[in-house]
């Protein structure tokens, strides 16, 4: 009894302690709170089932995020079986994240993040939200370190472009008003 209960107890504690972080990550990836909750539940179930496979307990977090990533990929594959998701975009026109944002900057950032391809979004969120190292992200997503680096760079460049494009119309209007004055 001890064998399973100890591994299970450790996994349950870590999963419970980090549930909000898992939800935040799933929500950042998919943009849908209901789906995010579903993914987290699925991930927690799988983590408990596989907890005896964890070789190094200090690697629990990357290991569990890897399972969350796999749950997300499985969901995407069920939706579109023949698509390369790393470069695919999930654009949600009426998902709650749009109406949820009230401030302009927040909305702009949210929209810009929403436009990122899935692969770039996953890398950026793991680094910026959870503070994982590039090495850990490579491990979680099972991609080379070089790919992590290039995705971070491309994601931030895309974000900057999107944000500046959103700011431009407003700035143009201000200039026009000034010229009338």
């Amino acid at each position, binding site marked *: 009894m001890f064998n399973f209960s100890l*591994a299970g107890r450790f996994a349950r504690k*870590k999963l419970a302690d980090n549930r*909000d972080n898992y939800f935040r990550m799933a929500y950042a990836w998919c943009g849908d709170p209901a789906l995010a909750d579903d993914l987290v539940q699925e991930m927690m179930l799988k983590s408990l089932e596989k907890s005896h496979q964890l070789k190094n307990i*200090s690697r629990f977090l990357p290991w569990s995020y890897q399972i969350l990533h796999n749950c997300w990929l499985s969901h995407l594959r069920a939706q579109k079986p023949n698509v390369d998701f790393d470069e695919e975009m999930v654009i949600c026109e009426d998902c709650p994240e749009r109406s949820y944002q009230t401030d302009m900057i927040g909305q702009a*950032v949210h929209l810009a*993040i929403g436009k990122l391809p899935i692969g770039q979004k996953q890398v950026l969120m793991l680094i910026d939200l959870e503070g994982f190292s590039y090495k850990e992200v490579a491990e979680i997503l099972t991609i080379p370190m070089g790919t992590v680096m290039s995705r971070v760079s491309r994601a931030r460049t895309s974000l900057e472009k999107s944000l500046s494009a959103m700011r431009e119309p407003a700035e143009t209007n201000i200039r026009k008003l000034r010229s009338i004055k």
Partner: protein
Amino acid sequence: MTTGKSISDALLHLYVDGELDAAETKRVLRAIEQDRDLKNRACQLQHLKALVKNQYPLKETLPTPQQPAGYSWQARAISLVLLCGGVLLGWFGHNVSSGNPMTRLADASASGNRANLPQPQTGKILLHIDDSDQSKLQALVDYTEALLQDGNRRNLKIEVVANAGGINLYRTGQGTTQKLQELTNEFSNLELFACANAISRLREKGIQLDLIPEAHTGTTALEHIVRRMQEGWRYHKI
């Protein structure tokens, strides 16, 4: 200005993400000081990083997940499977051993015949840490707690030995330290040891060390580990 040109955008991303070693960080900082454009670029990246993080706060402002009808039955099904799985696992799995180090560690201290009925088990486990990595410190504390709180391991003896960077485990003011103190107060079968050599070395370097009083400091980590292993303790490095 010329220094700034040797700092690529990719290197700046590594810098803002804390991926550079001390020497590289120093080089980037020096370049940033001398190049206004580079400084602006680094600020932009830091700002972007902060904007992203700010958009996904924990708890307070996240929308409450609302389960659409299509998901609720799935969630219930998962809960049911989890419940049944747990019951079955407990029922059939109580004598099964796996290859997991955590399990092996737990097994290692088990003595006597565990064939049929769960028996009170005795054992001696030595946990060793020599790294200041916060995730490792936290893992050690969580693991120790899980071991101590397991109902079937009441006769277990656990000692935690820290040296090198692992000494941080006993430094006052750390979150993990406080938890470890609570565990020590709650469980008399937990003892803490800090390496005497590591303490001397840090003090020689002028580093102020405020260790919790629960940590014994009379011996070196190596001596302690060797002695315990000779006495048949199970050793596990975090």
